[in-house]
């Protein structure tokens, strides 16, 4: 009972940099366990090793788990298996497009060009393979002339 509540609450924690997605939708949440005394262990995997949002996410996860009824919360960071953008659901990809972020292609083809998330123009240009967050690249659409962010396949 508590486990389901904690799991749902933790999965719904928004990513601080990609506010439109939760850590559940991003695939960062690997496991939630709650023992009989209500002590929860939440296992997360980082998107990037140096992701500065991780500390904040850990604090948000602990707070969400406690609010959902967990007594004590331990947040464990696990590197293996390594996170990949392939874990993003179709729904998550659609949400990204909706807010003007081009969703990632397949991780096996990281340099594949994304189309424009605004006008769907296929042939976009890379401005920089690094953006305001570790996971983003900056691109320009020659179709509508708008710059946009691209969540890099990883």
């Amino acid at each position, binding site marked *: 009972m508590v486990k389901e509540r904690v799991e749902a609450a933790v999965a719904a924690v928004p990513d601080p940099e990609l506010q439109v997605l939760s850590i559940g939708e991003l695939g960062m949440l690997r496991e939630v366990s709650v023992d009989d005394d209500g002590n929860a262990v939440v296992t997360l995997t980082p998107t*990037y090793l140096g992701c500065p949002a991780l500390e904040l996410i850990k604090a948000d996860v602990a707070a969400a788990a406690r609010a959902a009824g967990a007594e004590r919360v331990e947040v464990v960071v696990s*590197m293996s298996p390594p996170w990949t953008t392939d874990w993003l659901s179709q729904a998550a990809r659609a949400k990204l497009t909706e807010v003007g972020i081009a969703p990632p292609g397949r991780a096996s083809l990281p340099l594949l060009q994304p189309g424009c998330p605004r006008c769907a123009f296929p042939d976009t240009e890379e401005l920089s*393979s*690094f953006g*305001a967050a*570790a996971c983003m690249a900056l691109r320009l659409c020659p179709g509508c002339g708008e710059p946009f962010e691209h969540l890099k396949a990883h």
Partner: protein
Amino acid sequence: MTGLLEYLLGLGDDALVAAQRTAEWCARAPQLEEEVALANLALDQLGQARAFLTYAGELEGEGRDEDALAFLRDEHEFRNVQLVELPNGDFAVTVAKTLFLAAYQNLLYTRLARTAEPRLAGIAAKAAKESAFHVSYASLWTVRLGDGTPLSHRRMRDAVEEVWPYTHELFEPWAPPEAGLDPAALHGPWLEAVGRVLGEATLTRPQDGWAATGGRSGRHTEWFGPLLADMQSVHRAHVGARW
């Protein structure tokens, strides 16, 4: 024989010092996109350093965490190669250093991701994906500058010549059994990968001559002390301070 602890310190120190040096470009890069890109490269290196140094501290078992290892060791206790401590020079020198380091780290991490030591393999698998972007970034700039104007070609060529003697140290026989690899075996694939980029950039591979050595046993260049002083001063001035 290098032990696992010593090895983790080396991997962590390479990444930490590369992060510190690369971050010096913040507010100094030739354009905004490069500013952002170099900051991201530095951030990736810092993340890798944190993972390796945290593991090293736990393995040592003397209560030293990543901060203690980064900020409270002195020059001779660092195990990084001299390549990462070299000054940034002009943009071409930074591009050359980034290309040589990234090509090495990408090969190394890809192989370490398959070792039987699970925690090392986990960090490496993550880091390998990050370093692939660094290789792509540095390759792009090497080609753009090398195959650009006569001036950019000359400066890219000079940069490659200047940094080349510091690349041999990356392949010194220095790995514990847990790593499951011989660093010397990475040299061939590295020369091939780097040679391909240099060729596309209309540059030639420099002759091998004098080669830097000593970083893995704590002997560093004259530029390392000032870098450490800069990096460690706040932590040492405000002992025990937290955010």
